């Protein structure tokens, strides 16, 4: 299997879907010649032209609204929202329009819109360019929410998103773009709602999302040297959520930690923890622990910013504590 970066995998998925289906188009700020500031879309405009890879004005609500209208009339738009922090600007078009149109129309209208955006801190980008707001969109019925953690998952899940007849919010961690991984050759998709066990283990379950999967795997390596066997499980899609897989793993190990880069309070980690704590209750030997980003705006100063996110050390420490090894 070839090795690709996460960014290349996203690019490949888009290229394949643009090639396969004429109704797919990409719209966003600086997505064409610039290929986005992260260079993720580099080269797409050369193959598909400016009619299908469109540089827009700096109008996030406008292009999201345009995407909804195009989707409902037969196209499959991929709207690029540069930073996840700008989801703040499109929540009306996303939550009140895209998410509800199918239901409000009694099932008659469909909104096959994919909205790609980013998340993640520690890039020294400060409070307005570092947020991970997936909990907001996951709270809106009618939206599907995807948080890929590897290049292979990113590619397969993005292709599924584009082919899905519903609005899908697809969130990429900016810190992942340069990460490499094996990506299967040729055509494949990955179904939504199927969690992936990234590492098997017996003593403690670590449910991790997006780039926190890497953090969890690093913690698991460390824990292994100490004789603690950690299972790392990645839900991959927050909506639909593979509840059964999380519960089964927690029932097996009797202990669970949830690691997610959204702010901890009222975050996605609360939902994942609540699901496990309720449904695996009688198998749990210890309370479910949550590790989210600190409940502070993301500070610019590196020594402060580094405090705000879960790290292999803090995850391993939580696991040790749950396993009674403090």
């Amino acid at each position: 299997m070839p090795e690709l970066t996460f960014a290349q995998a996203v690019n490949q998925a888009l290229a394949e879907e643009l090639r396969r289906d004429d109704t797919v188009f990409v719209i966003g700020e600086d997505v064409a010649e610039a290929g986005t500031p992260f260079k993720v879309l580099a080269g797409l405009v050369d193959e598909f032209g400016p009619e299908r890879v469109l540089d827009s004005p700096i109008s996030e609500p406008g292009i999201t609204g345009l995407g909804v209208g195009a989707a409902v009339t037969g196209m499959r738009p991929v709207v690029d929202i540069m930073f996840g922090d700008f989801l703040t600007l499109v929540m009306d078009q996303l939550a009140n329009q895209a998410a509800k149109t199918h239901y409000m129309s009694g099932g008659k209208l469909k909104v096959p819109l994919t909205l790609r955006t980013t998340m993640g801190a520690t890039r020294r980008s400060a409070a307005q360019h570092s947020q991970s707001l997936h909990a907001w969109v996951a709270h809106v019925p009618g939206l599907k929410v995807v948080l890929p953690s590897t290049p292979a998952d990113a590619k397969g899940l993005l292709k599924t998103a584009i082919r899905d007849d519903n609005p899908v919010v697809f969130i990429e961690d900016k810190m992942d773009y340069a990460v490499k991984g094996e990506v299967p050759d040729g055509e494949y998709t990955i179904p939504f709602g199927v969690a992936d066990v990234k590492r098997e283990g017996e003593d403690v379950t670590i449910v991790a999302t997006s780039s926190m999967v890497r953090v969890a795997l690093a913690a698991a390596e460390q824990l292994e040297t100490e004789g603690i066997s950690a299972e790392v499980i990645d839900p991959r899609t927050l909506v639909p959520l593979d509840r059964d897989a999380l519960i089964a793993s927690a029932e097996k190990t009797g202990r669970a930690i949830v690691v997610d880069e959204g702010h901890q309070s009222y975050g996605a980690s609360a939902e994942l923890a609540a699901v496990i704590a309720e449904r695996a209750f009688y198998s749990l030997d210890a309370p479910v622990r949550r590790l989210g980003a600190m409940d502070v705006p993301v500070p610019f100063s590196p020594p402060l910013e580094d405090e705000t996110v879960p790290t292999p050390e803090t995850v391993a420490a939580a696991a040790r504590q749950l396993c009674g090894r403090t």
Partner: protein
Amino acid sequence: MSLTASRTELGADLALEMYRRMTLIRLFEEQANELYRSAKMPGLTHLYIGEEAIAVGVCSALRREDWITSTHRGHGHCLAKGAEVGRMFAELLGKEAGYCRGKGGSMHIADHENGNLGANAIVGGSTGIATGAAFSAKRRGTDQVAVCFFGEGALGQGLLYEVMNIASLWTLPVIYVCENNQYNEYTHYLEATAGEILARPRAFGIEAREVDGQDVRAVYGQTAELVERARGGGGPAFLLCNTYRYHGHHVGDVDRAYYRTKEEEDLWRSERDPLALHGTWLEEQRLATPETLKNTELEARAEIGAGLAFALEAPFPDPSEVTEDVYA
């Protein structure tokens, strides 16, 4: 602009048909009000009475496959674009037979087959959708146009300016129809609208015109020109229609003295009524006799009566349907 006369000229059939449609809307809305007052309708609704000439004038210039997006005050747009009375009443009552299986209600009726992408309860909320539909038409190479209806209150929403900019840049076939009925809910539009309305679209390079929204023929004529222009690749346009709602902001808004006078209401009703104006013209032109018009009304009344009976008798959806249609 060079328009073939045939395209925008008003034939006798169409003139009569427009009268019929306006009448149907008027009667539908009176009945909707009655449903509220007799506590048969859940929730509230926003009546279009007084504004009928806009929906009918605009939609008469459209083809079935052209798109419209609509507002919280959307029954008129819906009927003008070809919806059936019975399924509309059914939707207002939350019945399974309604256009949205009862899930949408008055503020969300969509009628995909007739090109109605739906009413919208977010002021200005559909301006992006209409612009996207126009984008889609252009990209798919059809010659459909999209019409975006909105009240003048939507001039306060930033989204409108974002999408007008985009529509102008990309020469999209979309027509923004501003229904200026003078009030944003309970506030006069002049208290909320600075400068000059038409200058706004023009600043984005959009062709903008003003028309008497009580004159169905004028609305039709302007729209027909702008639609032909858009179909031909001439790009977006903005049509400002001055009008008035006779009733309250919604059916429950009955004591209106604190924000507008009875005299003002009476003046519009007596001098500027779109049905009366068009009816008089039809008679003057000898396109109709008083009897023809009366018959048109009776027929419409019968249609309303039948639709209402259908809706009242129709069953509610089964509670289990609540979880259907969340995802396609």
